[in-house]
């Protein structure tokens, strides 16, 4: 029986790299599986929809209708991985809703595997949000993203206890390069002949991390 992963990339803070990670993960899943559905729940940040319009749908969790449109799609075990780029403004409302509707339990019943990718930051809002997630999400489904470009130093100990996925910081000129709307990570891997470039290695390392994350999911199921 297939298990459909749902990756929820989140943080209560803006500009911590959620959309970058959503782009990377979406492109990785598209490359690996040939299909992925991404949801952009960002109204106030750089948008995933602008980067990956062919595989991205917009959604909101402001009202019940929006929640239905998003969650009734996400809870389906159709074998197609889902990526949710959850904007910081929707963080509280989203997790309040998932707790109320019993999302994690229903997902387990329906062979859907949610993975919460919490993008850590060193501020108090993040420090308060993380225990809330720990309370709601089983440890096996909660992964802290240590985006070195955001954290710039050691990850606070509270976040480092569970599983951590590190995203190395890129030099600013490369960051600017990948931030272009027309840039595709997979296309870069395919077209760049020199595999020793920093960007090439950075993309491959992140794709490898995602592959490990998937492998962990499979191991947990078995």
């Amino acid at each position: 029986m297939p298990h459909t992963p749902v990756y929820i990339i989140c943080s209560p803070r803006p500009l911590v790299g959620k959309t970058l990670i959503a782009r990377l993960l979406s492109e990785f899943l598209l490359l690996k599986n040939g299909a992925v559905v991404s949801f952009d729940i960002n109204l106030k940040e750089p948008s995933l929809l602008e980067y990956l319009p062919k595989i991205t749908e917009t959604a909101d969790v402001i009202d019940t209708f929006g929640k239905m449109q998003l969650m009734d799609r996400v809870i389906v075990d159709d074998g197609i991985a889902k990526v949710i780029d959850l904007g910081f403004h929707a963080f509280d409302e989203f997790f309040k809703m998932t707790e109320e509707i019993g999302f994690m339990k229903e997902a387990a019943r329906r062979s859907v595997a949610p993975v919460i990718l919490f993008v850590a930051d060193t501020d108090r809002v993040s420090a308060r949000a993380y225990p809330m997630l720990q309370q709601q999400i089983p440890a096996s489904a909660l992964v802290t993203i240590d985006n070195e470009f955001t954290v710039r130093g050691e990850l606070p100990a509270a976040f480092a206890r569970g599983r951590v996925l590190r995203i190395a910081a890129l030099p600013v000129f490369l960051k600017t390069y990948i931030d272009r709307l027309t840039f595709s990570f997979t296309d870069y891997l395919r077209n760049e002949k020199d595999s020793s470039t920093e960007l090439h290695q950075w993309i491959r390392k992140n794709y490898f991390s995602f592959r490990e994350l998937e492998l962990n999911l499979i191991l947990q199921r078995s």
Partner: protein
Amino acid sequence: MSKPVVVVVGADKGGVGKTTVSRTLLDYFSANNVPTRAFDTESPRGTLKRFHPEITEIVDMTTTSDQMKIFDTLNSSSPSVTVIDVRAGLLSPALASLRDIGFLDAAKSGQITFAVFHILGPSIASLDEIAETANFMQGAKYFLVKNFINDTQFFQWDQATYNSYFHRIKDATELTIPKLNEMAYEQVEVASVPFLKFVANKGVDDESANYSFVLRGYVRHWLANVWSEFDRIKLTDLVGSGKVGARSSGEK
């Protein structure tokens, strides 16, 4: 044979959620395996009957024949609990009728267990009913149900007003029914099924349905909160069942 139990759900004011509370009670008794029958006094059409047709009968409580149908069968009928959803404006007259036929005296002497769920809306008019209804409450379990059909505070911000209503009746027990998400409520209305069936994603004839997972989640969460209130007042003990732990599956 266990004592017959009569639960009256009512209010003189309309639109405060009497039938909604009656439905949660029927679902609660059903989940706790308490045999129940219901009477819907919204004659000739009955909202409660639409949701629980198998166990609900529509009656006109102002007629003697229908009063006989309800109260003369209390001992002979097999279900131990009778829930009466009293339509708007009829609570006080209904209680007066019960007094006149000697029902309240029977409750007072312990032959019958009698409970009244008085549904309160967020208005002074609704709260004014409390004093009037309280006159009939000797021998009955009186529950003041604060039904949060909107974001009301039930005047809790004004302690004098609040106390003048809610602390006036010594033996009344307060109950809180939280607000259900509007779309979830409407979806259950459209589905015309008990809340329990909606949560279990089932149609009228127990066929598999396709209700929104989000809305089912909201109903499940809300129903769990309502039932925890019923657990708090030990409703199953009141009706002589006491099987809170033995709920049938599907409600959580």
